[in-house]
């Protein structure tokens, strides 16, 4: 830890240090061991940058690291890391499950006798930018579409006009590049509001 106090006097701007970040946990690679995804970080590094991997995880590197820490402390640290990793994994799993279980509601809301708006609720669970989705739908149907808060205070996309079926179709066919991609159709449901017809399955 030498301090680099000498300031370059030339008027040229100092070049930034290129820091090598881990693509998995975003930390500088030397800190992967303190992250919650060490195993995956290691795998990635070994595959993508074998030389760097050698530097950090070869036997002698590990040996020299232990040098400054008592054995028990090291063991404890390793145990903690493993625990943390398991926890993070469980969390990611739960998040994925929740995502898969979350519903997208396409509501057809009657405004006047013959006029409807379509509210699409629950898109944000699938990492969709609501604003972009609204813009996309507005362009598609040549109507107004906006992101508004509903009665529960959650954001939803509201499209003018009765476009529920079309929206479902778009979601079904959405490929890469489409803002609405990644929503499983099985999780979508069209619901009618005000008229007491009941929900029809999608």
């Amino acid at each position, binding site marked *: 830890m030498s301090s*680099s106090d000498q300031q370059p006097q030339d008027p040229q701007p100092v070049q930034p240090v290129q820091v090598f970040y881990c693509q998995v*946990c975003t930390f500088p690679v030397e800190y992967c061991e303190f992250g919650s995804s060490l195993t995956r970080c290691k795998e990635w590094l070994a595959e993508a940058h074998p030389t760097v991997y050698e530097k950090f995880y070869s036997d002698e590197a590990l040996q020299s690291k232990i040098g400054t820490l008592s054995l028990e402390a090291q063991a404890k640290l390793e145990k903690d890391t493993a625990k943390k990793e398991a926890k993070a994994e469980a969390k990611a799993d739960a998040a994925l499950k929740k995502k898969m279980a979350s519903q997208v509601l396409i509501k057809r809301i009657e405004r006047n006798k013959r006029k409807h708006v379509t509210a699409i609720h629950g898109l944000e669970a699938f990492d969709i930018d609501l604003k972009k989705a609204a813009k996309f739908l507005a362009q598609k149907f040549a109507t107004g579409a906006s992101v508004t808060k509903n009665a529960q205070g959650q954001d939803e996309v509201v499209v003018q006009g009765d476009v529920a079926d079309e929206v479902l179709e778009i979601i079904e066919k959405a490929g890469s590049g489409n803002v609405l991609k990644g929503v499983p159709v099985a999780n979508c449901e069209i619901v009618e509001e005000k008229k007491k017809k009941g929900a029809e399955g999608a």
Partner: protein
Amino acid sequence: MFKKFQPSSDISGQTPPKSSVQRSIRAAVLSQWKIEPETLEAIWPKKEGLIHVKCREHISIYTVHNEPLFFQHFDGPLYPTLRLLHKYPYILPKVGVDRGAIRFLLAGAHMMCPGFTSKGGYLPPADAALPVGALVAVHAEGKEHAVAIGITKLSTEEIKKVNKGVGVEIATHLGDDLWAIQSL
């Protein structure tokens, strides 16, 4: 400071400050960090407008090209973001902590004095002692890059003497919610 920080709910607005304000910020940065005007110019060109991102609890983040560069609490000192510090590690004085402290640091703890005074730690020598309230880059034993940025709560000489309690208050550390924000 950034233990729980959600860009969607904790940011109240983004505005470009007046050019006179930008000038004073630039002057403040130059006086608070050990940075040459040319380097700052490379990080934040004069032509590029600074954006002031207002957040909850009087935290202001300043961004250029949507990339957070530094932040501030009230009118306090301007902290560089950790990513910026990684690129220009010499702009803040260094202190070092031992290996055992790293995982507590990454969990968001403030740095206690013994972490600096033990064998793996590092404090500047007496002739380069830091006063109370100095910005420091917290480095870790055996690591190349800084792990956190904080402000001294005791002068470095006092840390050596007292050797108890909080020595450096951590403002941002690796893996906190500010770290997670790569662009605003």
